């Protein structure tokens, strides 16, 4: 179901579906009753274009509103970055299974190593 809201004074018309696709995440989202209520209010108030621009502005530049929390955001970004890397911070030296570092006291003798290298590598 589509419904059209119009602000004749400023020549603005907006047709709303029941659901829309979030252009950043690709998710399909229902139009909230609160959104409908606001659009209705602003179209009656001849300020529909201002509502749309305000919404776009805060959507495309969310940071400008949040400068009070920039330190917090920085922290979260750092955590996000670490999660994307998927590893423990460098310098920690180990992941789960103990040291993966080659050690010189390996029980393998040089003959066995050379044998494997000769047979499997080149």
């Amino acid at each position, binding site marked *: 179901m589509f419904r059209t809201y119009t602000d004749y004074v400023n020549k603005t018309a907006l047709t709303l579906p029941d659901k829309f*696709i979030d252009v*950043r995440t690709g998710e399909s989202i229902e139009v909230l009753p609160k959104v409908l209520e606001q659009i209705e209010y602003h179209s009656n108030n001849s300020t529909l274009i201002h509502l749309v621009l305000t919404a776009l502005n805060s959507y*495309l530049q969310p940071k400008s509103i949040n400068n009070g929390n920039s330190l917090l955001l920085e922290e979260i*970004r750092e955590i996000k*970055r670490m999660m*994307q*890397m*998927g*590893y*423990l911070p*460098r310098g*920690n*030296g*180990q*992941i789960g*299974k*103990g*040291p*993966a*570092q*080659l*050690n*010189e006291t*390996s*029980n*393998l003798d*040089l003959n066995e*190593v*050379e044998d*494997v*290298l000769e*047979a*499997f*590598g*080149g």
Partner: protein
Amino acid sequence: MEKQNFLAVDIGNSWYKALASDNGIFSEYQLPNAIALFDGEFYEKPYDDEDIILEENLIVEVKSPAVIDKREIFYIGKGAARQRDVSLTGFNNQKVDEDRTYLLLFGLAAYHASLQFPEETDINYSIDQLAVSLPTTQYKERKSRLRDKLAGTHTVIFHKVPGVPEPKELTVKLEIKEIIVGAEGACAYLGLTRDQETLEIKNEELVKESQKGIIIGDLGGDSVDFVGIKNNRPVASVEGEPFGINQFLDNIIQRVSKKELFRFDSRAELEEKLAAGQSEWYVEPFAGVRKDISKYIIPQLKSMAIKYLEHFDRVRSSSTEIKGAVRYIAVGGAAKLARKQIQEAAVRWSERGRPIELMFPEDMEKLNVQGLMILAKMNQLKKVQGNHVISTKG
């Protein structure tokens, strides 16, 4: 021992699989074997840098003696798979001679390096040991040429890097100190039998069985590599074949495109769907319209499974050294995807009186790269212990 960086890369025809160990810290990557020319005119600017994942947006320029410098810029991996002009591997391609091998390999190594130094835009990264693989059919003749091309210093420039100020570039200078080349399939045996940390034998039973003979059939994108193992070593007389899953994937893609009006961006996209399991085997040509595509997938996997077993049967009867093999092992990503169909096809071979009892090991798609990492570490061990022996002598 000094700090060391090891990198093992399984240069697959459908995926590049990499394991890195930096001073003992492991990382793992996989990248579709896809490249596409980058054209700035068609580059869609994102709303926000934070919407972009670097791994899916690798745009590289490679300056290296291994590739002719045409000053061309490429998408590699996932980003390339989404482009219209994506280039996937051709049938029976020669990995050593193709630029794509070096673009992808250096690009992947540089991406790994960039994650190690996230704050820097000018990175110097050295790899003490690089281990790479070739199909058995290309291994003997071409390994030294591959080693020569990989050795030395290569520069990778990443363009349009999210989170980096204009001109949004990141430069990684890779220094590759030593290279070891392994054969696909044979490396899987190392991965199966040896421990990643201690490099010692972890599967005594399999090593014992190798006294009588083992055959490994590594089913990949464009090659199936058979390796006979006798007394814990590869047997020379077994060869690979140009046959793999890619031709079957292409058939599925063609049919789905014709009948369901849905175009896969790349083989990698279809393969991810296959790996996710049958519940994901549908496409959405239009929003909200779900089309079941299992009827295109299953017959293709079936016919691949039958041919794979035919190759297996031929190989086991053609080599005298391996005639009495007691164990057959399936490895490789394609074998994992078609495990069910292969097992079904195996029943038919038993009915005909020529049973092929295959073993499907854990992590069968990663065994080659694990084996390569073991080779890389051993190569380092040899270097260090070798020096040690000399120094105590002297």
